[in-house]
């Protein structure tokens, strides 16, 4: 069965510490620490230097790098992320955030490039991602299924991305992304779309929920994500 967990941003935006407590209390053992805003990076680095024993409770950990760099340089961000790389935790980076690939090139497949939604001009399709992977040939792939569907609801681009980079997929991001780019809980329609391509996804890639989830509905959303990513045998959804 596929491992499913949550992004800390989905549970408590801007407060990874509270989110980690909630996830642990609910027995969720896959977590992605969201550091999407660059000011979140330093507190997490300090957290890792201190009492970070809670991280041992998670079997799969990934980190989401800041989406842009304005107060610190890309190089400084990679430097700050060293303790993360040292723990062999993959760092998910938006395809359009990488301006200087040389900063990331020595980190191999711990750099996990994520496909983008329609608001971005880079990394939305297989063709656009190819340019990114050409500059970072060892990087792994974080396939954001919600972004892929928002770009193309027929899921054709999604299939092309999986065909082209499926062997690189290390993580899955799961949510429904609205036409304006907001993460939402999964609708039946999104679940149907995801089931169409579920069989193409590597079974060992853990799925991280990015939809904003109230703590009391985490288990429910985990079930819906599992149902969405089950290999499609018929068009019907349970319930």
């Amino acid at each position: 069965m596929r491992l499913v967990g949550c992004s800390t941003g989905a549970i408590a935006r801007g407060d990874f510490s509270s989110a980690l407590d909630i996830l642990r209390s609910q027995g969720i053992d896959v977590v992605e620490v969201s550091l999407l805003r660059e000011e979140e990076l330093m507190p997490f680095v300090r957290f890792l230097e201190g009492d970070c024993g809670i991280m041992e409770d998670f079997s799969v950990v990934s980190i989401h790098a800041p989406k842009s760099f304005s107060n610190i340089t890309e190089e400084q961000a990679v430097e700050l992320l060293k303790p993360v790389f040292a723990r062999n935790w993959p760092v998910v980076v938006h395809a359009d955030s990488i301006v200087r690939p040389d900063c990331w090139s020595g980190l191999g497949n711990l750099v996990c490039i994520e496909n983008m939604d329609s608001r971005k001009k880079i990394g939305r399709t297989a063709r656009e991602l190819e340019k990114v992977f050409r500059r970072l040939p060892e990087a792994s792939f974080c396939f954001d299924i919600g972004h892929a569907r928002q770009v193309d609801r027929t899921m054709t681009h999604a299939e092309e991305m999986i065909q082209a980079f499926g062997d690189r997929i290390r993580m899955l991001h799961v949510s429904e992304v609205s036409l304006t780019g907001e993460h939402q809980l999964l609708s039946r329609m999104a679940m149907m779309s995801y089931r169409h391509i579920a069989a193409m996804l590597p079974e060992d890639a853990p799925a991280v929920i990015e939809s904003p989830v109230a703590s009391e509905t985490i288990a429910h959303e985990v079930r819906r994500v599992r149902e969405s990513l089950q290999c499609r045998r018929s068009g019907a959804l349970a319930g």
Partner: protein
Amino acid sequence: MYCMDEANSLSNSVTKLAERLGCKWEAIDKARSDAMVARVKLRDLVNNPGDRVLSDGCSVVVFGSVARGEKTSGSDIDWSLLIDGPVDPEHRSVLHLIENGIQDTFKSPDPAGSFGEMVFSHDIIHQIGGQKDTNSNITRRILLLSESCAIGSSEAYDRVLRSVLKRYLEDDVSRTKGSSKRQYNIPRFLLNDVVRYWRTMAVDYAHKRRARAGLGWATRNVKLRFSRKLIFVSGMLTCFSCHLDPMKEDGRNLCGQSEIQLSTVNHLMEYTQMSPLEVLAEALLKYASDETARDAMGAYDEFLGCIDDGGKRKHLDSLDPELSDADPLFQEMRKQSHGFQESLTKLFFDEYDELRVLTRKFGVF
């Protein structure tokens, strides 16, 4: 058309009128309450917390008696999946999912009708008039404006409504010529479509009588005299309200055509949030004598009471047109419809000068 969550507050006009006249219209009250229950059931089906069905870019829209707040025992659920967004292969699957849920709980729409299907915003907004404005398209468009209600997320629904209204105003030559004309006019393009739809309904009534060899004729006849006519009446009053309502006063401070247009769209949006009976009650409150108001609402209450009565409805459904002249129930409803018509004539022509002028000027030629 009115939103489910606001239905109670928007039922003010009928309630206010009942209070003013000291009347109680039991059938109207029951039909409104039953419609609310149906809408809550539909909402649970489409938008159950934790099991949202639709992605953004589409809305489930109900039309007909449930949207009007006039649900009776024989009411079916006229609904459509309104799509205003990118193509999604799952639209078909989700249509069936909703269809199955509705079939389990309610009477399904007439298979020969314009409902129970995917409806695309582009047709509704862009195909006003011309060869491609089919009978179904004008039906969906006018009913969207006059008697519809979004179940669950209304984002796509609100967007389409606003776009349709904007389209009517933008393409209204009488409103756009002469930029110095700083006043609200009657939206003639919209009014013409309202009138056209009323005539279309009347012609279709004759067509169905022939096509169905008289089957269900009496019920359709009674509905034409009341609920179908009410759609026309509320459409006329909505258009006239652009001239009659206080927004006209506010409009004096507006500078340009675009400001006036935006203000008019907002005004018309408010009217689309009211059921046709609310629009009528609002006009009766403002422009009619108590006697006229009592007669109009009383007749409509009789109509709803008759349609809600399973035995009477069944009788009308199966009445042979040839026997209608001697049928006491049909004759009673016919008499009530004449009372309803007489009240409407008084409202539009006799009791309020400005409304009479507008009706003479815009309602006939």
